[in-house]
């Protein structure tokens, strides 16, 4: 390519590059820098505060902070339950859609995608009201069936949030898996059927291996989202602050350290730690799932 043309092409990307530096690189650098300091109040706390270099102290504190590590563990355990359930349902629904005629499939697909159109905050508002013993229909339904359930109790709050996330995520994941399924050459299924394979067998031995890539991808996106979960617990905290405390998830801790406790340096260190955890988790997940295909 001609030299001048190269630079003209590069020029198209300049606005983005400048913005990226200002909105991504600079903040990350700033966060890392801030995380290496801590505020020292001078004298009796009357003379204001000064920032002092403290090296990796904030990180050491974060890694040994039972609240932070507890919240990470809580979210990880939750992810290990909710994500497989959600992906399994999405996979089954994608396989179901694949068994229908194109017209019927598109009708069901639209209905299943309705929750995805709803903003996360609104979805949480709606489900919180459905769960509410005052206005929601679920508590009377429980009474009718002989269950005395309280969706906001400590043992129920994760299942309640899990149901909300599953409801919100099934459609999106289903569409991705379904479109991967549509990419498989149909002849493969026909051939297997002519060989006498049952539908069940075709799904299990041909269709599912073929959509593995889509499953890995949706799994990875879900993990990234889950480690950063904030909106749903924040709204639940409005209703039940005793159960969902301000250190329920990692981002809630970070937010509170920064804005309520005013401990910005520590919040910066925790957000860097969370980024590292996210990177490691995605890497491990990718390695584990792609190894099996070898």
């Amino acid at each position, binding site marked *: 390519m001609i030299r001048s043309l190269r630079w003209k092409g*590069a020029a198209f990307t300049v606005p983005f590059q400048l*913005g990226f530096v200002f*909105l991504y690189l600079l903040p990350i650098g700033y966060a890392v820098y801030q995380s290496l300091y801590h505020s020292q109040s001078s004298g009796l706390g009357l003379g204001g505060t000064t920032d002092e270099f403290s090296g990796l102290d904030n990180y050491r504190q974060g890694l040994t902070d039972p609240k932070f590590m507890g919240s990470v563990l809580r979210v990880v355990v939750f992810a290990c339950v909710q994500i497989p359930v959600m992906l399994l349902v999405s996979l089954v629904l994608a396989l179901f859609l694949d068994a229908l005629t194109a017209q019927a499939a598109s009708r069901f697909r639209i209905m299943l995608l309705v929750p995805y159109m709803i903003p996360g905050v*609104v979805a949480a508002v709606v489900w919180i009201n459905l769960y509410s013993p005052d206005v929601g229909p679920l508590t009377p339904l429980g009474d009718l069936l002989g269950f005395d359930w309280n969706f906001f109790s400590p043992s129920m709050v994760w299942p309640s949030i899990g149901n909300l996330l599953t409801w919100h995520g099934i459609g999106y994941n289903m569409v991705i898996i379904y479109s991967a399924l549509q990419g498989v050459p149909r002849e493969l299924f026909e051939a297997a059927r002519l060989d006498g394979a049952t539908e069940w067998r075709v799904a299990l031995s041909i269709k599912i*291996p073929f959509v593995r890539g889509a499953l890995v991808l949706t799994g990875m996106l879900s993990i990234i989202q889950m480690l950063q979960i904030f*909106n749903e617990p924040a709204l639940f905290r409005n209703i039940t602050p005793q159960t969902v405390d301000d250190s329920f998830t990692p*981002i809630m801790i970070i937010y509170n350290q920064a804005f309520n406790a005013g401990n910005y340096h520590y919040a910066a260190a925790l957000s860097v730690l969370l980024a590292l955890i996210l990177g490691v988790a995605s890497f491990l997940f990718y390695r584990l799932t792609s190894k099996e295909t070898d």
Partner: protein
Amino acid sequence: MATTTTTSATAESPKRSQSSAARRLNRPDSRGRSRGGQRFVLVGLVLASAYSLFPVYWLIIAATKDRTGLYQSNGLWFSGWHLWENLHQVFTYEDGIFLRWTANSFLYAGVGSLGGTLIALATGYGLARFDFPGRGVVFAAVVGSFLIPIALLTLPLYLLFSEIGLVDTPWAMLIPCLINPFSVYLAKVYTEATIPFELLEAARIDGAGELRIFFSIVLRMMTTGGATVFLLAFVNTWNAFFLPLTVLRGQENWTLNLGLYNWSGKRAESGIDLTSLVLTGALLSIVPMAIMMVAMRRYWRTGVTMGALK
């Protein structure tokens, strides 16, 4: 498992013509299964659809009820028609602050996404159709940034914005919308699919400048791709919560989401009952999304799946 796969693979080539002929002749039957199996699939899908639609159905019903109806009537059916009163209440509560939030959401999502889409299309085009030094680095940054947690960006951004006096102004929402790595990624994919090198060569031979080529040829050919990028960015901004919560303080600059979050919290804390306000507001905030999604169904479905197949 392995045996089935291999037999089907070997069986595939000799039987290919036959099987595709069978498929052409009676497709529904060849796709289908036993009647029982088909029924099982339908029942499963009907149940899943009911699960998906039920909360929305309940929300619509709830928005038509007054307070007594909300608390005392059956949640599954109408009880009186008070939708207009509820709407009136939503739009007049605190001097119509809800309208302000709606306008803000439209401003941030509309203007922010428009600017972001234009920047993304230019960047995607530059990355896909020019070979300049550092191109790989830019693209790596785009993909790598998918993994950066929002907290890591938003908190320092808040500090930087407060240094330059942007916190609690619309700029604090608009500026971050301009730079969207996912949009850039999509724009690059779309460029690769729709803009042939030969066309650019021809335009250059005809003496068109690069800017002219971009604005009068590339952008025009990218209408569909651009619409998808815009739509997804719009939805993202409309749904955003952590960024507005962090950078917006006074409620006159809030988004719909922040307002609903606040009302939802107030209901529990103070004496006023805002439940029907929250529910009617929630229903209203879905309407623009629903209209956009339906109007642009063709575009956004390809966008969703393309984004997935990276």
